[in-house]
């Protein structure tokens, strides 16, 4: 590696990520630790410390990935893909059952969520397959290949069952297919096939998922009170007002009316304690992050790099939108964490790893005067 590439280190991108990670640690602390009874426990049992610890590990991976030329990684996409599939199968075979989902692989220190890693590897794989540098995008082969590569992990993840991650995987694929430049007629045909399959998918859905979707569209159809979490999230967000109730002073979160608040509903904690100002600040941070990722895509030296940045942007966008949308009850409940902010070691580490790869792309960009794409001009 030439030392010179670090001169092109995308500092704004890194800073946005850093701020989001710090906000995450702070909110995890507020959601879970701030009003926990002061019982003596090891540092490892402190959820906020763990989040910070994983953030540290994740940032190390980030820098490591930045240092490694992404083109080297992409070259090993087959091995990566097989490894990811193997991990998923291993999880399926021996994974411990937690929260009803077999998605955790127990390791010495922490659990690796294979599906999280799978998302990153899928981005690399699809970037390679769809970039057009290796297969002719005008033919149907890349598209068919991408579908063939997508379906096995998608099914495995869906069976765990992790509907949320499967959804994200599908979204990444769809986004990357569109942004890769697959021909519109192909996309149109694909869309029609998808529409035809939609009812089939609906009936294949787990009953709890159908219920959630139904309840979202017809709120009165759920009189049993399963909508408790969503109601409490709405109360949390709404009662925040302009400036919020103050950090660590959210009544909904500190008094535990808000459930699963350090993961799925962490946005509600933030919205309650820092108000509209804090919540919009976080939303704007995510917008900036996505725009910055798209800037990296635009400046990428090749289509592999462009699609890696695009895939990560699509992943972060969909996951963020689905999570906040669920918090604000404009989307049905899917158990998806908020990227970089929600508690969760493997999600945080793999996400930072993915962003490190994007940083790697950014550091190896072409001179600004000759961009790959005439984007934004």
């Amino acid at each position, binding site marked *: 590696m030439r030392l010179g590439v670090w001169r092109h280190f995308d500092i704004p991108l890194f800073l946005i990520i850093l701020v989001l990670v710090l906000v995450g640690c702070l909110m995890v602390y507020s959601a879970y630790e701030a009003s926990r009874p002061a019982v003596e426990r090891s540092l490892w049992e402190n959820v906020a410390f763990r989040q910070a610890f994983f953030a540290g590990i994740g940032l190390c991976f980030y820098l490591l990935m930045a240092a490694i030329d992404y083109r080297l990684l992409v070259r090993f996409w087959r091995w990566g893909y097989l490894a990811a599939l193997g991990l998923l199968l291993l999880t399926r075979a021996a994974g411990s059952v937690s929260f009803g989902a077999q998605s955790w692989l127990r390791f010495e220190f922490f659990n690796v969520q294979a599906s999280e890693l799978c998302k990153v590897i899928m981005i690399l794989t699809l970037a390679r397959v769809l970039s057009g540098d290796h297969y002719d995008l005008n033919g149907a082969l890349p598209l068919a290949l991408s579908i063939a590569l997508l379906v096995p992990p998608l099914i495995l993840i869906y069976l765990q069952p992790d509907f949320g991650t499967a959804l994200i995987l599908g979204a990444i694929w769809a986004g990357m297919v569109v942004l890769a430049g697959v021909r519109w007629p192909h996309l149109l045909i694909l869309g029609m096939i998808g529409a035809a399959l939609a009812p089939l998918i609906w009936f294949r859905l787990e009953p709890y998922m159908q219920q959630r979707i139904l309840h979202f569209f017809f709120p009165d159809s759920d009189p049993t009170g399963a909508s408790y979490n969503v109601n409490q999230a709405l109360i949390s*967000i709404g*009662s925040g007002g*302009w400036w919020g109730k103050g950090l660590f002073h959210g009544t909904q979160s500190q008094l535990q009316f808000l459930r699963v608040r350090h993961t799925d509903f962490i946005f509600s904690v933030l919205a309650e304690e820092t108000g509209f100002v804090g919540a919009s600040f976080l939303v704007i941070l995510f917008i900036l992050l996505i725009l910055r990722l798209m800037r990296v895509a635009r400046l990428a030296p090749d289509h592999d790099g462009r699609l890696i940045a695009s895939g990560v942007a699509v992943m972060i966008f969909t996951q963020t939108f689905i999570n906040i949308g669920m918090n604000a009850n404009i989307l049905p409940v899917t158990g998806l964490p908020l990227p970089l902010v929600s508690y969760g070691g493997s999600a945080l580490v793999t996400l930072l790893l993915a962003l490190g790869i994007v940083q790697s792309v950014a550091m190896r960009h072409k001179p600004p005067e000759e961009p790959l794409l005439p984007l934004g001009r």
Partner: protein
Amino acid sequence: MRSGSLWLRYALFQAVVFIAFGAILFRLWNLQIVSSAQYRLSADRNRFRLVPIDAPRGIIYDRDGRLLVRNVPSFSVSIVPGGLPQDPEERQRVLSRVGELLGMPVNDSETATTGEETILFLSGAHRPSITEILEKRASGPYTPVRIASNVDRQAAFILEEEHLDLPGVLVEADPLRHYTEGALMAHILGYMGRISQEELADYQARGYLPDDLVGVAGVERSEEEALRGTRGQKHIEVDAFERPVRVIASQEPVPGHNLFLTVDVELQRAVENALREGMRQAGSKVGVAIVMDPRTGEILAMVSLPSFDNNLFSGGISYEDFAALNEDPRHPLVNHAISGQYPPGSTFKIVTASAALESNVINRNTHIVCEGTYYVPNRFAPDDPTLAQPFRCWKESGHGSINVVTALAQSCNIFFGKVAGGFQDFPGLGVERLAAYAAMFGFGEPTGIGLPGEAAGLLPSDQWKRQHYGESWYTGDTYNAAIGQGFVLATPLQMLNAMAAIANGGHLYRPQIIYRAEDAQGDVVHMLQPELIRTLDISPQNMAIVREGLRQAAINGTAYGFWGFPIEVAGKTGTAEYYAVDEQGNLILDKKGRLPTHAWFAGFAPYNNPEIALVVFLEGGGEGSQRAVPVAVEIMRYYFGLPSPAPEPTPTATAVPTPEEMMTP
């Protein structure tokens, strides 16, 4: 070409990003700015609770400060319906654990497990399940519903220890009344219990909660307002599991007033012992003895036997205990001192004597012949002796020509019958004037002692008899009324109060039981003041004549138990015939075919400066002079600190003169 197409696609993606996040920001604006107040209200409703704080109930002492009632902790278990887990399985787990520890069924379908807990449901032996109680009594998701009171201490501790695993379950320590003297003071102090359904609305209007305990008998009821204090309340913040987190504001309760009764508990004990012994000797099942300070109307002792242990009621009486007390034919729950209405018999002659003297029907020197039996002529056929009604004196041979003093001392029936009903040319007092004077003495109306359940007694009149019997008033009725028989009914307390008015020279005081009340700071908020009901319209001279007769009774008259007593006692015996039926509905008569009699004595001492007045009543006790007087003697002896007499052959039923010799109405 490809680049241009890609530019469009990225622009499209960028547009999707902006639209999506724009929608989120718009939504946030709506939630956090436009509807914020509404959500803030919901958030506050989630966490704030207004919790009542019960005021410590007032303590009750006797007049010398001896403790009679104290508050001891008792544990109760309540459930906050909204605090229970949402998940049905979790909810069932919590309820099962609670049911297991309390020995209560969880669901209606379960058969009741055996257990010794006392839940307050007097209506029947059915033991309601936890879910049933929750359904019936829940008034809101966050209002605790009490499912068990007086919970075993051990179970309460276990529940308290597991409270983190049992969201929505509250263990509370409530104060319980403990009556140090139990049955000795039960009729005076009364007891506490749940508010009955009939009274619920009334109590709620006065700020009570449906689960509150209130005084339902005795002083606990009559002084409820003073004892209860003022409930406080605290504004608390709770977490999602209804566990209190912090107190925002609290308004401390004001403890109830501490009461000092007029009763001297040691005198009460002595009175009870004397009465019990007297009842045993007389074979009487119900007895009353009351001691009063005639100068003020203070009740120094008031015993009604049989009594009951009022501690049984604290924390909920079991169905079996309550049924046993309630179905006892002697009515141990009834305070016969104020609720029992009996013919007063000869003790009533103090009224007849006073009335006749004050109405100038007789004077001190009016002598009337007692011939043993007098035939009261029929009003419509005065000359037909076959229609005449025999009126007998207890002394068959007659007292001869006697004046009012001797008549009182010897308790002559014919003297008072003639004085009231008239004979030959003697006009007599007449029932109207007799009733008027009796009313003046307080008969026919409650004395106003303030204890619940006081009876009014009965003063008959011509009009009353027409209404109730459809008959006119006969002269014979007047004869009977003059000696406290016939239709006259009085409570022992009324009899005592009339006697106290004679003792103190004509002041009829309202009997009082509360000597002093103090607030929690020890400041006296109420001090007994004698309350005059009325001054008797009887001249001191006439009063003195009556008193002289009562004194003579204790010197050489019917109250022979007091003959030679070191303290100058005055009093009046009474042996009142009454009608009673046995289980078969037959009139109860003795072997000689006579009606059974109540034994009475009412008196005061010392004669010249009376300190105490008392009444002794033995239901079906027989002769007043024979049965009631010895009880009075014992009480007087205790009061004046006299040593017990040298053990002489105890007068037993066989050793005393037979009723034939001693029939002393």
